[in-house]
């Protein structure tokens, strides 16, 4: 079995950001992403919609370089004004050549 070590970047964000975030993720070199509808609570409690606390959780498997680029961009462009939380963790992937 052929495995590769990659980074799983997980981003929790306001739903209005979906289009922009996924576009930026793909632009920076990711080959895909997976989105889950979630709800939650944080320090800001920003509520953008008639259903407060609703967020999306974006996961993307990327190489270390892409992960860095994504997190840099997040720190710079999204965090100042939006309710966004992001983290990265190392994972082992099969079909790793695909990413």
């Amino acid at each position, binding site marked *: 079995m052929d495995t590769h070590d990659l980074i799983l970047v997980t981003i929790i964000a306001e739903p*209005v950001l979906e289009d*922009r975030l996924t576009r930026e993720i793909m632009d920076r070199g990711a080959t895909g992403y997976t989105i889950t509808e979630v709800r939650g609570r944080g320090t800001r409690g*920003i509520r953008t919609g008639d*259903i*407060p606390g609703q967020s999306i959780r974006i996961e993307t498997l990327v190489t270390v370089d892409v992960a860095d680029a994504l997190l840099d961009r997040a720190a710079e462009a999204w965090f100042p*004004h*939006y309710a966004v939380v992001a983290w990265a963790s190392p994972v082992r992937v099969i079909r790793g050549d695909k990413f």
Partner: protein
Amino acid sequence: MGVSGPKLSRLFLPDCTWSPGLTEILQLNLLSPITLAFALGILARIVRSEFSLPKDVYAGLGIYLLFALGLKGGVELAKVPLGGIMLPLLVTLLLGCIRPLTSYVVLRRLARFGPVDSAGIAAHYGSVSAVTFIAALTFLDGVGEDVEGYLPTLLALLESPGIHIALAIGALKSSDRSQPMGEVLHEVLTGRTMVLLVGGLVVGYVMAPGTWEQVELFYDGAIFKGALCLFLLEMGVVAGERLSDLKRTGLKLLVFGVGMAVVHGVLGVAAGLAAGLSIGGATVLGAMSASASYIAAPPAVRMTLPEANPTLSLTASLAITFPFNIVLGIPLYYQIALWLS
């Protein structure tokens, strides 16, 4: 039933100045199923009940209501000569351009909010709440007042211009314009309300004769009103959830939310009468004009003006202006229309 008084009084008692007092009309409105359902939803939140309509059911009801509104409006639109509605359309467009400006100026100068927050809130008050519109129709139906059937056309027209005007102001004032305006324009013009309301208007307009009757029962009358009650029950829950924010957002937002509604409401009624609308039609235009968006405007503002505090605008439109209009505003605008006419 003294309820149908107003209309009867004008038809049969031309010499008599009696008309049902504001109190009588208010009471009728307070005890209507939709106001009561809304109040029940708020109460459920106040006692910290976990009750709420499932997200998808709430969205489904909203879609049904908007599409029904569009269809009915389209069917009625097909019955009137287009020339006859040019004036109401023009007046509505004017309201769509003026209201974001009055809102911005009041917020900035009188209430002394920051420029970006002012623009964000003004985008909400420049647009419109479809549920307030529907509640006004239902109220007028209850008091036996006729309205022009094509009013949903005006609703569709009033939704978007105000948002864009306010966002343009905000973009000038903001350092961080996150989203190209073109995208936001696209998003609003292809949003749920546009597809269902404008789309429904067109479908209703071009439908083959006799086909509306085949689906009318589903889209009008008791089923429409019954579904509206369930929708307002959940709107009560949603609005109730924001009541706690009222403390944080302060008294001046409360005063703004009520005051702006009354000012815009009177403006709408006067404009409606001036454009030749019936008393009922002017009341509805007043209610529309007095209302604030909480569906189309919030994401548009969030995307273009990320520095604006969304709690302020949503609390104002959803927890102040919306309940005010449903409970007190609509009967008030009706009374004003009666006086002015």
